[in-house]
């Protein structure tokens, strides 16, 4: 008994080790939902652009469509172009002669879902499942030294990308 007891004590203090394996479930990241500020439809813009005059204000909502927490790292608004630099219209068709580079996208501002708390994305912003922020971005049109008639009456596409 004593020998056995001594062996047990030595085992416990110097060589004891244990491992255990278990498996958990890690959810998949869910893409952000980008909609109009009301939570459905596509982002909408108000205002009319002319060369050097007017602003177009784009409003949108970024929603965590998943059930777990996710963090927004960045939101980028662009005026996409085809291979020749032409802006695209709302259906994705190039507006020949209307250059995307004539449109300037300003900085975006963000509000939390309470509608008043300002959100900055200088660092990742955590959102719980179904949580959202709203964003506002202004776009202007440059008054170029060339005819810009190709843009008249058109609806240049704006793309909101969230990462």
């Amino acid at each position: 008994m004593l020998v056995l007891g001594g062996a047990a004590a030595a085992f416990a203090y110097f060589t004891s080790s244990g491992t255990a394996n278990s498996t958990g479930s890690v959810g998949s990241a869910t893409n952000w939902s980008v909609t109009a500020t009301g939570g459905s439809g596509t982002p909408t813009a108000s205002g009319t652009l002319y060369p050097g005059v007017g602003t177009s204000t784009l409003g949108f909502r970024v929603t965590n469509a998943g059930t777990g927490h996710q963090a927004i790292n960045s939101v980028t608004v662009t005026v996409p172009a085809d291979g020749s630099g032409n802006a695209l219209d709302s259906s994705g068709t190039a507006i020949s002669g209307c250059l995307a580079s004539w449109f300037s996208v300003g900085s975006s501002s963000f509000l939390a879902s309470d509608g008043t708390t300002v959100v900055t994305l200088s660092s990742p912003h955590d959102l719980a499942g179904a949580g959202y922020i709203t964003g506002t971005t202004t776009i202007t049109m440059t008054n170029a030294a060339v005819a810009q008639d190709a843009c008249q009456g058109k609806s240049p596409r704006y793309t909101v990308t969230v990462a």
Partner: protein
Amino acid sequence: MNLSSHKVSWSFRRRVVAAVVVLTSLSATAAFAYTRATGAANGSGTVGTMQTVTVAAFVGGDTPSSSLYPGGPAADVILRVNNPNSFTVHVTSIAGNGTITADAGHAGCSTTGVSYTAPSNPSITLPSGSTLVHLAGAASMSTASLSACQGATFNIPVTLAVQR
């Protein structure tokens, strides 16, 4: 007694190990969630169409600052222009586009002798609304002008080109 005591100790250490594993898993989950999700959507804006600038009727007080004389110096031409846009436009040309005629009260002035010289590089801006434009030295009268043209006001058809 000793054996029993060591078993308790072993059991405790296993709990410690298990707790560490759980914490590690939570940490990994957070890192995963912060880096993978993306999203995108398209909206569109509106580029306006410029409304046509028109030449409008004169209003009271719209008079040239100089008069024409046969063989005399060039005189100014005036035109009232309406810019219906909400923004300023720039006049790029004011070209003559028709026969110059005398007013209805001078029917005998069939040969006006009046000519129009378009400004080569007009530096004219038109704010929104109505503007009276003076074109200095844009009209002249030759000696071919009939005597019946005395006191007449001449209508000079022009076409304006503007740009934003």
